[in-house]
């Protein structure tokens, strides 16, 4: 795995944080910015969940990752801690592969 995009991504994430504490307030206080920025993680996380559960190698697929996600969803609804949500999904996939 290449280092260059990795370090560039680290630099970009730091630059964003630094901009937030450094830029004059008016740049980020625009109501459209205030409304749009919190929606980005919602859309991106939902997109990551969908694409990484229902695809492999550019094709739509349905496999053990779907029930693993369903179990994670139940764990989230039960307000389980983060590590438990992730472990429950991994365990579901592992067990279903044994069947």
């Amino acid at each position: 795995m290449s280092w260059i995009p990795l370090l560039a991504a680290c630099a970009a994430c730091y630059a964003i944080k630094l901009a937030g504490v450094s830029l004059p307030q008016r740049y980020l206080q625009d109501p459209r910015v205030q409304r749009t920025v919190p929606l980005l993680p919602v859309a991106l996380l939902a997109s990551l969940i969908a694409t990484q559960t229902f695809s492999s190698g550019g094709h739509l697929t349905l496999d053990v990752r779907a029930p693993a996600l369903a179990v994670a969803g139940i764990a989230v609804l039960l307000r389980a801690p983060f590590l438990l949500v992730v472990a429950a999904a991994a365990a579901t996939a592992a067990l279903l592969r044994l069947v």
Partner: protein
Amino acid sequence: MIRDALGIAVATGAYALSFGAISVTAGLSIPQTCVLSLLMFTGASQFAYVGVLGAGGNAWAGFATAALLGSRNALYGLRLASILEAAGLRRFVAAHFVIDETTAMAIARDDPALARLAFWSTGVAIFTLWNLGTLIGALATRTIPDPRVLGFDAAPPAAFLALLAPRLRAKEPLAIAFAAALISLVCLPFVPAGVPLLIVAVLVVVYGLVPRR
């Protein structure tokens, strides 16, 4: 307050274990995994970067996704700037600690001195345990011959879901989440890996910028 900071840090340390495991399973080396936690230090972006790579996506698509997910930290910084009053070198260090947890802890205090203490204590505690957890998770996963057997490859969507759930407490974000998931799956067969994310990002920005009545 220090106890609150430690409590949050222990929870995020456990969450860092899963980051270390997922990153190594996705094919990143242990030094790369640790550098992400040291230098990127914003959980959702880190999970997204390794998630995109693990799913066979281009590293620059991972870069774009990580940066877009990190954009919210700029708004946190905006809220924190007036509380922290950090100048010079302190501001460069403080900026690195601007994440969900430190913001939540700082803005919950009315007194600026207490807010600053909350920010710094949470930041230092989380930074320490986040990096420690990452290293342990990565090293432990390295000892497993095939992490797929333990289902680690199925873990990233669960991690994303746990990060997404607290943001869905209103109708609009819930509708956006479902629309984003659907649109991504519809475009997926026609574009390279990682690109559905960028399409969704452009669409949500357009949606957000359209004037409302």
